[in-house]
């Protein structure tokens, strides 16, 4: 690298911004390449005798999805309850407490259910996947895969991508349900209505489009988490410390990616 000592603060600042931007573009390109190659193996793998194994996908689904159910259920429930509390408090000023139900129903199914699911999966699997692949990278296991004629992306990335595509919508639905129930417990106490009346009103205020929005986002989040986590794993270097850095970076970037993607997709879906 050429370092010019005479350069001013601003030119150095601009240079570092530019370099970071370049690195960001590189990361995005790497992720896109991973996605492309995963899809290639998924569809063409059988033809070149390197199929993506169903067993591997099932294992990933169990790891990413089933194992995350308890924590997701608790978080979604708490989130629904909080929305009900805040909603009732705010709407009471207008004497419109009962409107909280439709508010919860739409906000949860369109936005917060899937967002909670995404954050839980990003926190658990975003780090775990990066750590697993990073460890393999450092122990030459990725080389070992390649020299055995096993494409690392086919073996390590494609199952994660497929598992995410299949399990994230299910996680989003679970999250929606638990958040609605959480909101229901608070609402039924505060508004003196029964749970069944609450649920009836929730269903009445929803249109299929609300749920579809959430499901669509869940698929996008799943793919983002898979790609960010895997690329951080493959690019990990520098021993135990580097591995720690890679996993931290992976979780932070996963969450950042899904929140930004959420905003962007909401913008396009609503407007």
């Amino acid at each position, binding site marked *: 690298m050429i370092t010019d000592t005479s350069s001013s603060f601003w030119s150095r600042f601009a240079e570092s911004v530019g370099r970071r931007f370049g690195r960001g573009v590189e990361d995005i390109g790497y992720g896109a390449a991973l996605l492309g190659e995963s899809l290639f193996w998924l569809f063409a793998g059988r033809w070149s005798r390197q199929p993506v194994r169903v067993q591997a996908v099932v294992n990933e689904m169990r790891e990413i999805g089933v194992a995350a159910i308890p924590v997701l259920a608790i978080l979604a429930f708490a989130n629904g309850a909080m929305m009900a509390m805040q909603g009732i408090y705010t709407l009471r000023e207008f004497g419109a407490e009962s409107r909280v139900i439709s508010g919860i129903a739409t906000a949860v199914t369109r936005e917060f259910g899937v967002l909670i699911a995404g954050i839980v999966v990003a926190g658990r699997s975003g780090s775990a996947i990066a750590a697993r692949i990073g460890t393999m990278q450092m122990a030459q296991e990725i*080389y070992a895969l390649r020299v*055995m004629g096993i494409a690392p992306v086919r073996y390590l990335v494609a199952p994660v991508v497929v598992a995410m595509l299949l399990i994230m919508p299910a996680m989003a639905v679970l999250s929606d349900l638990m958040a609605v129930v959480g909101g229901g417990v608070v609402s039924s106490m505060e508004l003196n209505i029964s749970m069944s009346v609450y649920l009836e009103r929730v269903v009445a205020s929803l249109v299929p489009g609300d749920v579809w929005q959430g499901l669509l986002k869940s698929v996008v989040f799943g793919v983002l988490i898979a790609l960010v986590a895997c690329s951080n794993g493959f690019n990990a270097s520098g021993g135990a410390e580097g591995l720690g850095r890679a996993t931290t970076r992976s979780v932070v970037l996963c969450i950042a990616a899904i929140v930004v993607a959420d905003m962007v997709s909401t913008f396009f879906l609503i407007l």
Partner: protein
Amino acid sequence: MEKTATPVIEVENLVACYREQRVLDEVSLDVRAGEIMVVMGGSGSGKSTLLRYLLGLQRPDAGVIRIFGQDIGSLSSREWTGLRKKMGVSFQGGALFNSMNVGDNVRMPLREHTALDENTMRIMSRMKLELVNLAGYEKLMPSQLSGGMLKRAALARALVMDPALLFFDEPSAGLDPVVAADLDQLILKIRDAMKVSIVVVTHELDSAFKIADRITVLDRGRILVSGTVDEVQNSDNARVRNLLSRTSEEQPVDAKDYLRRLTEVVD
């Protein structure tokens, strides 16, 4: 089968660059069928780099590598997979998959490349584990194995597809002399039992002279000498002699240069 006349590996004028530096400079060598070729050299000589190129983990900047007569630069990914089924690699640290036990590690290539049933795969993997004297260790995890056992388990995995070409990266690195000698013996035994061609990358002299049919000595990215064990031992190249007699090659210190390095302002 390949004709015995054509070399298993042919390398012609291989050049590899890392940044501005030439890590390999016009390296040419060939490995004949059924022989043990030892690539020897000190740290930084480029021997590990050469191995990475031979394994197709990196693309050459210039030059040609042919394995079983096929130019590996022009292979499709499918042809590569076919070629790789005929090659086995034993990595320096073993590179066993830490998430699987020894048996599953050894069966991994079979599982991915064949449609054999579970019983057949078990029998085949046990045969290879017997061959490397690791019978009964199938259920252990890699973290529970000693250094020598790790390397032998990795060897069993490399052998499970019955390769025609076998690579060893620093087989005796990090092992005590007795275990290292055992491993040398094992390499010879495997060559005789399975009729494979073997490429060993090492810096251990004793081991190299014991197992090699031919030795190639690499130094600073160039081939110093390539020939039979006797030819290498009788070489009159100064650097080869230094390597063989383990003479230190410390450069005399230039006082002016030394002072400049100490006082230099680096920003």
